[in-house]
């Protein structure tokens, strides 16, 4: 079955990129087809998601359709711990912004030229200066609450919302950081510090995994805006399965199938694949598109989150009253040893729950109650977002043995780290140990690499490069060799940096919108 309508823009994926692109296009009077594998969740559904999280410890969203989402990974073999993809992403209108943290940062200017500066990673074909205006626009689209700080890269536009100040707990770290020659700053959040964009200010539900108030940005708001224009057709529960090409190497259509089994062909002028770094690569591989140089799926990057902490018996903190913690440091992002390791961003936390020590310390009953009384509110900890270097062996490929609901090969995830990654993680542990020792922690505990050590940031599988032999898309996100096919999202990042990728994803989406819709 073919839709009779021909769209200006066909977008695969109704997440952050899809939402921003669809809204930008419809604001300019263009027509959009938005294809989403997952469903559209009503806002009221969030209360149920919250309850599910509180009972089971994970959002329900990613598990709505197990038949559709069976995936394998080989990371146990490559890095020693399993990597369960479904806990790290989200299919549905809004994508992973439905259950993200909302912590938001710009990449550092050096991240765009790490090969030239440090001999690691690779250079982006665009610079920070090229992207800077779009970073500002993205902050206004998402409603970022932030406070400018000298640690941040240069900006040409103010934050739309005032930043959340340091909590009383956060202030503990300020003098310690000063003693160590580091600076800390209040985190920027895509969470409203005041009503903005038709959404309320944060009401401190302390339930940030779900955000039932809507104060935290989620991309379904932009999808809804596009739909309201009357120029956007949203196809939910519809999986893009193939990209069909014409003889002249332009895209003819996207072949999709609904979960009910209805096939459809969607046609447009431009096509944007924004289905998350794993699925975007998978769709290109399934369609044999853009892979002439065997780059599709390679260089899969994820931020490894290394953490450490300990108890301070004589100091009392008051965790989990705002729902989110708000202190970071970029002092160890660069440095004299940056040629030897990747970027590191520090985050500070007070949230370790002594009740979680039950299994590790083998205490229960009255002893557990006493342990909680003695230790609750005395934990100080740090986490480090660490850079993962582009690595051709770290990749998404098609699994020849497992098929999805429609009979297509599922993606096979293979994460790989190199020596630079290991040195980055080691350096992060050293830095955190210095902080904790300076804070007076006598016994520092450092969590080993585990299935919980990942930040759910997937990047790099369709990376951007001017040279078609080095990447999948050009500087405008157009797939090399195909005139009207684009890829957008974290998948086009040549390097990962060590900050949350969402703002860069959003900025690249807005830049692509200007390119396509000018």
């Amino acid at each position: 079955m073919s839709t009779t309508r021909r769209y200006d823009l066909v977008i695969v994926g109704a997440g952050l990129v899809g939402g921003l692109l669809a809204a930008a296009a419809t604001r300019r009077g263009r027509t959009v087809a938005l294809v989403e594998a997952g469903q559209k969740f009503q806002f009221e559904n969030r209360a149920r998601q919250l309850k599910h999280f509180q009972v089971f410890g994970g959002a329900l969203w990613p598990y709505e359709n197990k038949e559709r989402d069976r995936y394998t990974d080989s990371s146990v073999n490559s890095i020693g711990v399993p990597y369960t993809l479904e806990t790290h992403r989200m299919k549905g209108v809004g994508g992973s912004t439905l259950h993200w943290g909302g912590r938001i940062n710009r990449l550092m200017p050096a991240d765009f030229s790490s090969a030239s500066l440090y001999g690691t990673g690779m250079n982006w074909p665009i610079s920070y200066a090229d992207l800077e205006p779009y970073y500002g626009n993205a902050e206004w689209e998402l409603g970022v609450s932030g406070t400018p700080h000298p640690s941040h890269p240069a900006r040409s536009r103010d934050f739309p919302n005032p930043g959340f100040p340091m909590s009383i707990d956060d202030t503990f770290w300020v003098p310690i950081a000063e003693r160590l020659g580091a600076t800390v700053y209040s985190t920027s959040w895509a969470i409203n510090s005041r009503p903005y964009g038709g959404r309320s200010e944060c009401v401190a539900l302390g339930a940030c995994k779900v955000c039932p108030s809507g104060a935290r940005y989620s991309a379904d708001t932009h999808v809804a805006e596009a739909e309201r224009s009357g120029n956007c057709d949203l196809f939910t529960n519809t999986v893009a399965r193939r990209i069909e090409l014409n003889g002249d190497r332009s895209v003819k259509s996207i072949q999709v199938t609904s979960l009910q089994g209805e096939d459809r062909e969607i046609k447009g002028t431009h096509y944007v694949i924004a289905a998350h770094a794993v699925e975007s690569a998978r769709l290109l591989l399934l369609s044999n598109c853009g892979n002439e140089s065997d780059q599709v799926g390679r260089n899969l990057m994820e931020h490894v989150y290394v953490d450490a902490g300990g108890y301070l018996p004589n100091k009392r903190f008051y965790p989990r009253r705002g729902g989110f913690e708000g202190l970071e440091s970029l002092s160890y992002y660069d440095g004299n040893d940056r040629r030897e390791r990747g970027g590191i961003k520090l985050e500070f936390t007070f949230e370790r729950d002594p009740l979680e020590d039950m299994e590790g310390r083998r205490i229960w009953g009255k002893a557990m109650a006493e342990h909680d009384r003695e230790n609750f509110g005395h934990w100080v900890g740090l986490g480090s977002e660490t850079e993962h270097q582009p690595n051709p062996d770290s990749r998404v490929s098609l699994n020849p043995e497992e098929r999805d609901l429609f009979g297509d090969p599922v993606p096979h995830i293979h994460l790989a780290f190199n020596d630079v990654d290991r040195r980055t993680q080691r350096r992060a542990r050293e830095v955190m140990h210095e902080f904790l020792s300076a804070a007076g922690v006598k016994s520092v505990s450092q969590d080993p690499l585990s299935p919980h050590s990942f930040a759910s940031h997937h990047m790099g599988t369709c990376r951007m490069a001017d040279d078609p032999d080095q990447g999948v898309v050009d500087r405008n996100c157009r797939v090399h060799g195909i005139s009207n096919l684009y890829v957008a999202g974290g998948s086009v990042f040549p390097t990962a940096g060590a900050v949350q990728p969402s703002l860069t994803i959003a900025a690249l989406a807005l830049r692509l919108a200007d390119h396509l819709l000018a």
Partner: protein
Amino acid sequence: MNDERSRGWSRRHIIGFASLAAALAAVGLQSRPSPVRGAGNPESDAATVRSTLLAFIGALFGRVLSPLDAADLSERLVYLLDFNGPLAGDCRALAQYLDQLAAEHGSPSFNQCETASQALIVDQIMRIDVHSIAARLLTRLSASHRAYYRMRWSAVPQLAWLYRHSPAAWRARGYTRWAGVAGDWREMLHPGASYP
């Protein structure tokens, strides 16, 4: 010949393994629970399971639960038991086993046990070693052992999570607000409550 040797080792290995498995099974069969299926009204059974699990949660964390705590936890238990079939099965097996152990302490059910007896039973449950070789073997050999060990590594951690994220855990710490209850984010600018 290498081939001969490897076949010999293999045979001995199999015999040894079978003997070990049989011995472990014999030991395990003595210690395994024999879950009893309730034959009464399903709704009253569900209520019984919930009250047993509530008492277990209280004993696990060394707490006497207030009626408010019990109501909050009970609501979450209903969701847990209704939503996830396999996990609900593990929780029911745990409840049945707790009541069986309570009977050995002369009590009709776990939630009617003396506090000291509850503590002993919790200790017994928590000391089940799910990582031992015996546990791994027996889990593969019999469904009842599988249920026995799942009760420890599946149901207990899940109930612990449920408690940690419930109002009951935070009330005990002097908090008057917890995840899911709206407030003002500016609270974080000031000290909070002391541990009662």
